[in-house]
């Protein structure tokens, strides 16, 4: 399907998911605002999830569903396991984000700021 452009596609799919991870990490490491950090975490999660799906892809494969039309022909199907895993990963990512947001709310109320470098009452 992709023919000679294999490398390009590899680069673009893997590259974009790795780029998402790195961009997210950058936000987590550098941005001072708590919300941005949480967003960064979500972006990282998305990158990882995209990576899961990308890795599970098999060239020319269809969705791993034996619908009436394909049940007899048994076509090449993509790997179903990463798809199942990514479902779990997404949900867990959602849960963590929700907790993170609630913590941000608490922190903002407590410190009246959302800058992470000003919230350091616990140290040493």
């Amino acid at each position: 399907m992709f023919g000679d452009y294999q490398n390009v596609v590899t680069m673009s799919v893997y590259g974009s998911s790795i780029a998402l991870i790195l961009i997210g990490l950058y936000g987590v490491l550098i941005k001072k605002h708590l919300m941005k950090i949480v967003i960064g975490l979500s972006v990282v999660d998305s990158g990882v999830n995209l990576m899961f799906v990308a890795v599970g892809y098999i060239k020319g494969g269809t969705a791993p569903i034996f619908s009436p039309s394909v049940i007899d022909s048994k076509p090449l199907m993509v790997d179903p396991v990463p798809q199942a895993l990514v479902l779990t990963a997404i949900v867990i990512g959602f849960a963590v984000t929700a907790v993170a947001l609630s913590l941000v709310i608490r922190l903002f109320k407590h410190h009246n700021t959302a800058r992470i470098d000003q919230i350091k009452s616990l140290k040493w």
Partner: protein
Amino acid sequence: MKKYLAIFLLLIVGFYLIQAFNLVPFGANRVGNIDDESTVGAYYLKNTVPKTSVANVVTAIVVNYRGFDTLGEVTVLFLATTGLGSILFRKRKHGEEEERVLKESSQLVKIGSRLLFPFIALLGIYVFIHGHLTPGGGFQGGAIIATGFLLMLVAYKNYKLGHGALTWIESLAGITFAGIGIWGLITGGTFLENNAFPGLGNVNDLISGGVIPIIYIAVGFKVAAELTGVLDILLSIKPNKN
């Protein structure tokens, strides 16, 4: 300075990630020959239809082969709601009404939302009822339903959710999932074993796959209730005075 250091470090991480995934060519067949069953993927593709009568292999994996994961996943959601409740808990003064931060929406949005909501809910329900036949399933369906509630929450400033009902749905759905699991143990099989019904039915029938659709429906309800609960909690936070 810190910025460039971070970029530098992240580029190194990226380099090694690329290096690691470089050995995993995109689109190559890593499942192997399906009849070899050398990988779990191959085994699932080969055996799902004959052994579970479920057309959607992903659903079979999520609910049955790796159903234990899914149970954990549902628990994570449940715990997130619980945790949110405990983190953002505040004592309400007697008679104090919940008040949201939102502004009142326009009439158009309100009516539009009310019109859309049943259809969204219906779509969600369809998605999780047909989880074992078509793409989608409990999580997806639940999320769709929660979107409907989000719409309502955004449109109506004081949209009341039945908290009691949410708790009931959450708990009952959870009990159904865990209970089916334990039923497997009671009947002499293994935890979550697909033996609650005598037959598995025909592939691609609506009623097929043993307990898999039932679990997925329970998951759908649970996810819908929990996502809605999370949205509700996060929306009902009072802003700081200053």
